[in-house]
């Protein structure tokens, strides 16, 4: 009986790993192929079957993409928009999340549902009236107005995630800080915030990637100051394959780097939190 249970447990673990491997392959394969193509010579992109390693290794394709018209400027716009979005969502979203987690106020549950329901509006419906309004206000075609749009898109998620992050920091800890001489703001800054940081970082990561990848609103709300996805999308049909691969890889890059950086940070800090 005992050995049978052990076999079942081992099979279960094997199945878990197999499934995890499958998911990993599902995600990694396209990324890897794009990567290989981006670092091969331009001619190699058309080869079939595809080589498994970029041989000979070359940055020619990447350079070609980066030197293409508008790419540098669009990258700059993308970074500006993403960072602005990130700052705005944190400034608005984190206090809202904190309030949801800590205070019982009238209409808290309806507020929560309201927040989620804003995600129900398709971006199309939001973007076109916004484009009209922005034109009227003279905000059209600017990274700032696009950042406002992205903030609106990211806020529901940010508020819900930060509220659950703050809810996981025991109230006792802030109260202890207050009995030890902190005012509520100091208690938040010295105790709740450091403990919430990993979760806030995760929300930040999400916001950054969302803004960096968002293409629909970007296409509608900008003309000359295109962000990178908007630029790549509009020139996609006329551009050669190497440009597409290099563009794809370049747009993947920040997400990957950001995720690697944040992941280590998450594990480090969460390891220290005790219930």
């Amino acid at each position: 009986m005992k050995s049978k249970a052990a076999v079942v447990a081992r099979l279960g673990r094997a199945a878990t790993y197999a499934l995890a491997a499958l998911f990993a392959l599902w995600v990694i394969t396209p990324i890897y192929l794009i990567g290989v193509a981006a670092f091969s010579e331009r001619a190699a992109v058309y080869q079939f079957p595809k080589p498994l390693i970029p041989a000979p290794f070359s940055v020619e394709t990447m350079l070609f993409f980066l030197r293409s018209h508008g790419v540098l400027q669009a990258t700059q716009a993308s970074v500006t928009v993403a960072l602005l979005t990130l700052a705005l969502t944190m400034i608005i979203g984190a206090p809202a999340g904190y309030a949801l987690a800590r205070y019982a106020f009238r209409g808290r549950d309806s507020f929560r549902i309201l927040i989620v329901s804003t995600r129900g509006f398709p971006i199309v419906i939001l973007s076109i009236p916004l484009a009209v309004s922005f034109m009227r206000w003279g905000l059209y075609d600017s990274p700032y107005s696009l950042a406002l749009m992205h903030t609106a898109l990211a806020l529901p998620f940010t508020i819900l995630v930060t509220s659950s992050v703050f809810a996981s920091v025991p109230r006792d800890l802030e109260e202890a800080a207050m009995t030890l001489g902190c005012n509520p703001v100091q208690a938040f800054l010295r105790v709740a915030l450091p403990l919430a940081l990993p979760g806030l970082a995760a929300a930040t990561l999400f916001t950054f990637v969302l803004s960096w990848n968002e293409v629909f609103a970007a296409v509608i709300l900008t003309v000359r100051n295109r962000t990178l996805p908007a630029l790549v999308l509009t020139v996609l049909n006329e551009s050669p394959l190497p440009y597409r691969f290099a563009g794809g890889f370049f747009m993947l890059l920040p997400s990957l780097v950001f995720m690697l950086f944040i992941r280590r940070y998450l594990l480090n800090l969460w390891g220290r939190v005790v219930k």
Partner: protein
Amino acid sequence: MAQITLENVRKVFGKVVANRDITLTIHDREFMVLLGPSGCGKTTLLRGIAGLERIDGGRILIGGQDVSDLPPRKRHIAMVFQSYAVFPHLTVYDNVAFGLRMQRVPAAEERARVQAAAELLHIADLLQRYPAQISGGQRQRVAVARAIAVQAQVLLMDEPLSNLDALLRLEMRAELKRLLKELKATVVYVTHDQVEALSLGDRIAVMRDGAIVQCDSPLTVYDQPATPFVGRFIGNPPMNLLLADVRPAPGGAEAVVGGVAFPAPGTAQGGKLLLGIRAENIQVHATPVAGALPGKVLVVEPLGSHNLLTVQVDEARVKAHTHADAAFEPGQPVWLAFPADKIRWLEPEE
């Protein structure tokens, strides 16, 4: 001087009254225990004193100053939480130093005071560790060290020992008692454990349903409970309470229990009274004795130092202690004698 005065302190949560107009004076350097079953409002009262909960009525004075509207940081208190509330992102040192840094104590003095508090609680060798790297008992010591390092005149403790295992709790209880005697602070200590209350407190305030039922020294609360609730809640086994009929008799009234008449107390002339007697004050006889209640042994529990007898007397069950060598058998008829000076008369609760 840090006398704590509570005047008609009231706290309401929605429809639940957690503290109903509590008035209590806790003297300077006194160890006051708030004792009661869960939900009796003792923690709410403590949080009210700490300033973590705004009171809905009445006043709280600490050292003569009305602190009812002051936030916790301006009340000159320190608190130990039931969950310990040790900051997980700070080392033990930084935890203990937290309050001192908020007070902007000079660095040299900070080091000295952290070291002193850590040595008092035997955690001096753990100062560089993180809370996740030490045991629950050690974390509890950190919480106490953090509270005493700020040298507040009032120390509030919310069931500080309830999360420790039995052996550790016993050890820590004695250590706390020694430590808090040295500190010379006014201590308010919340617990639902009557043994803890009896062993630690200078006085015990027994609470029930948001009110203080009795506040007195541990011995008095144990020996002369003000209500049947206090008699049952404090002591193990609980105080025996037997219903007595009071009726007029020549030369005063008498109270009758199980066919035996006792002189009724005070001016009672009729109605019902409860006869209260502690298990250790009952004399158990194997043969009939004048003025003793007849009963039958139900259970005999040898407890080493003594035996605990459960005796059926009419409808009631009485717990009595006997000498460990006394040979009683279940089913045996016995006679229970109550020494007159050990009998307590209580009004029955409705």
